[in-house]
């Protein structure tokens, strides 16, 4: 089996396009005709989705069940260098790193040491990317005694030990505090569970009772994936199967190469800022990107990026690589299938020991997506000026992750992870339209936990989860609105809060659009002597005076947002935010960036935004030059545009 592609720029000649090769050449290269390759590829995509559906149906852990915090892939054999050819429609940071994770895990364990029925695991961020909670499960597929493929799953485990229950905290200093690191090990051997491996995990993690059934389900999904792969090989032959894996990666490579070629040759620089790590706020962290583009190739250089952080806000180089692949896919051609081939014409050159290429043991990795998300932002910052109308505005930048635990009055322990902070928020706008308002970061792709399950599992009441007004970056197409979330805690709790990007807007504008404003986090303690439940909090600036600010750039007196003259509040000034029963936590995310000149936005769209309370009457005039008459609350259907006043406002010299 071979490939028609070559590695980046090893030749100066044009590569043959897949559509231009003859049928005979296609069959010679890929072991089957085009139609058969398409059929096999779709059947394999069905296989990973079937595995995913099965796991979703059976999972006990809320982060699997409610967040879809897992992914499935199919990789090729060692003799083809483990090409990741098929991915599920799920968590992109997992997909981006799984190709390398499978290769590194199997190579270290030794493919010659694997047998049919084995399940190999590894959770080391430096070997496979992401963080220790994300365990890779890898099952070899054998034909006639030879490994021909791997079916794989990476799934977030709710706890992997370490100093913080649930793990989501910026405060852990090194890999030893961070959690249990599992090197390549067998979890099942010839379809028999390896008790010593299970003991290693369950003796070092919390809530093993929840993990155990999920592990059993993962084992069954991998066995299902193996069966489906073998069915394809039996029906179409091994050459056709392996050729299809190669074809899938070549297709990605060709589309990405075409997309890169559309960028003008040159050198582009960009950056993104993370406020601080979990030790103190004396150092902020910059991700610096230089993209050098020539012809069909791009080299992404991360030199100039800050040294690795002193606490676990770093990511590994495989996460940085994923971020680069995601950013270029989104900016240049969102239709490129996400496989190993995505990176064929992309080289990532990075010094070791940076925030996004950290080294053990001190460069701890937990909040990895925050650092690699800054890589996405920096690539957008670099390329947007060159892309003009193809530019994409920035998203909310940080999941502002909330992690809390405690014991209720009756002695029941509880944990809430990634449910009650600012985990979900907006995207930026594009040339196609307004940014979405309640989703996850560009490269995550998760679900949103249902309020009913959050309130069932933890002593909390979700008071408010809504779009905040005037928070989408103005533009011809508006950025998505920030999310405002209020939660009332019915028990004392220990909270870890991780908003990392409140100093500089993450929702940068594109093509002349404006950035979305930054958010913040506040805790409202219960009123002294109050024996009733707190009332709903308002959203006007006067409500914040009684709060305890956690994060954000705020007015020193009113504690309301003040991005110009306010003072920065450091999210880990208390490593643990301890709250009393009756406290309310408010998280406001950053807003998405706008695309295009705001004064070119169709006035009717501004009117609709006022009607739907994305934009206030004052904001319509200030940000869009559209004068709206009426009250959206008392008479929403009576709103109308003052055409003359709007024309006068829009024609004012700037």
């Amino acid at each position: 089996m071979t490939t028609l592609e070559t590695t980046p720029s090893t030749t100066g000649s044009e590569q043959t396009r897949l559509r231009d090769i003859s049928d005979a050449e296609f069959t010679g290269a890929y072991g089957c005709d085009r139609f058969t390759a398409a059929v096999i590829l779709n059947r394999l995509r069905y296989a990973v989705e079937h595995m995913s559906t099965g796991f979703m149906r059976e999972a006990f852990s809320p982060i699997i069940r409610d967040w879809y915090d897992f992914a499935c892939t199919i990789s090729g054999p060692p003799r083809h260098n483990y090409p990741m050819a098929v991915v599920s429609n799920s968590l992109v940071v997992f997909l981006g790193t799984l190709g390398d994770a499978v290769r590194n895990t199997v190579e270290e364990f030794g493919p010659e040491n694997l047998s049919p029925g084995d399940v190999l695991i590894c959770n080391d961020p430096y070997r496979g990317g992401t963080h220790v909670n994300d365990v890779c499960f890898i099952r070899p597929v054998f034909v006639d005694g030879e490994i021909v493929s791997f079916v794989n799953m990476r799934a977030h485990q709710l706890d992997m030990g370490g100093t913080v229950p649930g793990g989501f905290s910026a405060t852990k200093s090194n890999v030893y505090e961070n959690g249990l690191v599992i090197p390549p090990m067998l979890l099942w051997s010839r379809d028999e569970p390896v008790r010593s491996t299970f003991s290693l995990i369950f003796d070092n993690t919390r809530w093993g009772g929840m993990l155990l059934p999920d592990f059993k389900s993962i084992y069954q999904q991998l066995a299902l994936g193996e069966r489906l792969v073998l069915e394809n090989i039996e029906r179409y032959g091994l050459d056709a199967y392996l050729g299809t894996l190669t074809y899938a990666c070549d297709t990605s490579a060709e589309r990405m190469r075409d997309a890169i070629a559309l960028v003008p040759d040159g050198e582009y620089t960009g950056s993104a800022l993370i406020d601080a790590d979990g030790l103190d706020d004396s150092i902020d962290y910059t991700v610096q990107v230089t993209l050098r583009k020539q012809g069909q190739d791009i080299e992404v250089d991360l030199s100039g990026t800050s040294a690795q952080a002193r606490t676990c806000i770093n990511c590994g180089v495989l996460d940085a690589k994923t971020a680069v692949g995601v950013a270029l896919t989104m900016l240049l051609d969102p239709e490129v299938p996400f496989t190993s081939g995505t990176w064929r014409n992309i080289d990532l050159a990075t010094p070791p020991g940076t925030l996004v290429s950290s080294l053990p043991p001190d460069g701890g990795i937990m909040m990895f997506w925050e650092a690699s998300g800054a890589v996405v932002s920096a690539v957008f910052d670099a390329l947007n000026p060159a892309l003009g109308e193809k530019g994409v505005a920035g998203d909310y930048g940080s999941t502002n992750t909330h992690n809390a635990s405690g014991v209720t009055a009756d002695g029941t322990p509880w944990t809430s992870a990634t449910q009650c902070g600012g985990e979900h928020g907006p995207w930026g706008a594009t040339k196609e339209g307004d940014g979405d308002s309640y989703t996850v970061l560009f490269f995550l792709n998760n679900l949103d936990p249902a309020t009913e399950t959050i309130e069932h599992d933890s002593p909390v009441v979700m008071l408010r989860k809504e779009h905040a007004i005037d928070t989408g970056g103005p533009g011809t197409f508006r950025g998505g609105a920030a999310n405002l979330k209020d939660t009332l805690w019915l028990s004392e709790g220990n909270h870890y809060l991780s908003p990392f990007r409140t100093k500089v807007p993450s929702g940068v504008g594109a093509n002349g659009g404006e950035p979305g404003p930054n958010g913040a986090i506040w805790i409202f303690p219960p009123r002294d002597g109050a024996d009733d439940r707190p009332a709903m909090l308002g959203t006007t600036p006067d409500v914040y005076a009684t709060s305890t600010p956690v994060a954000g750039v705020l007015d020193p007196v009113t504690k309301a947002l003040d991005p110009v003259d306010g003072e920065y509040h450091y999210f880990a000034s208390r490593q643990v935010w301890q709250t009393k029963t009756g406290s309310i936590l408010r998280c406001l995310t950053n807003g998405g960036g706008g695309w295009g000149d705001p004064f070119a936005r169709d006035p009717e769209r501004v009117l609709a935004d006022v009607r739907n309370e994305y934009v206030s009457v004052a904001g319509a005039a200030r940000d869009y030059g559209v004068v709206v008459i009426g009250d959206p609350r008392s008479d929403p259907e009576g709103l109308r545009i003052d055409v003359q006043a709007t024309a006068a406002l829009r024609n004012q010299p700037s």
Partner: protein
Amino acid sequence: MTEEHDTPPTPVLERIPVHGDCPRCGAEELRRYPVVSEGGWFEVVKCQQCLLSLDRSPWSRLGPIQLLTDLL
């Protein structure tokens, strides 16, 4: 501000000069350095002008990270 610290210097990727001209663009700017791409880590000899890779050899599996157990 909780405490003053010196900001640590930013790490730099060493690009080692390699003697010779680029066969594609003629530039005398060949450098050797590691990159990560499709297929993992490679040590490349690459033209800094036109990005032509004159050589791409597989590098250490985990890049700059060395495992003590690799010494077993």
